[in-house]
């Protein structure tokens, strides 16, 4: 009896990561709105802050962001077995799709119907990611912390307009976090 909830949890984790992976078009960050909806809003296995932490860690580690994020997610939810299950769920859809496509990829690439579907899906992905940026950005603004807002605007400008190296940006922002914590602790100790 003890094993059953764990087994159900792993199965749910597997099917959820597989479904999410099958719709992660357009790069690793698209995993964020999908992960947030499934694991934060529907299953309540995580909170929104953890999702953002996972992305920060996934982005700073070697390998694909989506795979890294699913390892962190799986480990958080069900330990080592959870991580294995989440990895498997994440890599199976692209592996199966690419294996099948490798047989007739020229026809696929040049089919006007396929291109019509994928072009429109791009618009769907754009809607999804714009929506999550507004809701997550709104949450940051609602905290009314001036430094957070300035950091958010500066990082966007640095990465989007000036193409600054993302790892450098993350290290710098982590340093700002450490300094702010230190200053806050000093202030509290002073009181």
């Amino acid at each position, binding site marked *: 009896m003890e094993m059953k909830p764990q087994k159900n949890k792993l199965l749910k984790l597997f099917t959820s990561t597989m479904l999410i992976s099958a719709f992660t078009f357009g790069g690793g960050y698209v995993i964020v709105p999908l992960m947030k909806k499934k694991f934060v809003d529907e299953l309540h296995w995580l909170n929104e802050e953890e999702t953002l932490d996972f992305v920060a860690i996934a982005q700073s580690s070697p390998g694909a962001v989506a795979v890294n994020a699913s390892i962190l997610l799986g480990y958080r939810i069900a330990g080592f077995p959870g991580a294995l299950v989440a990895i498997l769920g994440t890599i199976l859809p692209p592996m199966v*799709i690419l294996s099948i496509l490798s047989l007739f990829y020229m026809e696929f690439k040049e089919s006007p119907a396929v291109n019509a579907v994928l072009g429109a899906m791009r618009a769907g992905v754009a809607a*999804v990611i714009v929506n999550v940026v507004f809701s997550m950005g709104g949450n940051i603004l609602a905290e009314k912390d001036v430094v957070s807002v300035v*950091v958010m605007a500066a*990082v966007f400008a640095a990465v989007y307009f000036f193409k600054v190296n*993302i790892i450098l940006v993350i290290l710098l922002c982590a340093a700002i*976090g450490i300094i702010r914590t230190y200053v806050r602790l000093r202030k509290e100790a002073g009181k």
Partner: protein
Amino acid sequence: MILLKLFLSFLQIGLFSIGGGYAALPLIQNQVVDVHGWLTLSEFVDVISIAEMTPGPIAVNSATFVGIKIAGVVGAIVATAGCILPSCVIVLLLAYLYQKYKKMTVMQGVLSGLRPTVVALIASAGASILLLALFDSESIALNDVDWQNVAITAAGIAALRIFDPNPIWVIGGAGAVGLFLYFLGNSSGLEKILLIGLAIVVLAGLGAFYFLRRRKQDGDKTNGA
């Protein structure tokens, strides 16, 4: 021997591609095209466009593609395993450390400092995706607006705001609309009427499904309270 080569080659790609996605491309090209000659340059360009058209990380996609071409399904599995092994080891270690130390004051400071950063990174990726969808290029070109995609994006955002569905419905639904419009543009008069009729039936079905589910959920809530 070839399997070992595949494994080691994609292991290097997995280990040195920090930041994912396009950061991995030059590494993959170096290993797959220049060092081993498993793909020609034009095949490699094809792999990139296929990877863009299919879900999943570009490194996993190219590992599968190259693996299959060189050594069949076993090759695909070996190459993909090599590609994700470094992530597995390093990120698992980080996951362990994160769970263990996330309550520490310094960690809290670092992580809360990184949250606005990550939102900005997502926004930056989102801006590129949005421009690509609306203008079919990475820059704003007002004479080259893809109005169909503008409409789909606007409808998608509205649907997400009003109904808060799983985003998968919006992405899949956008694809279905694209397919519908494609067939509509390539059909004769009678076929057009049939297609529109079919679309109305599907939409009505989805609407009814949504309505019934909504009523059931409301009923559950009332019962629960």
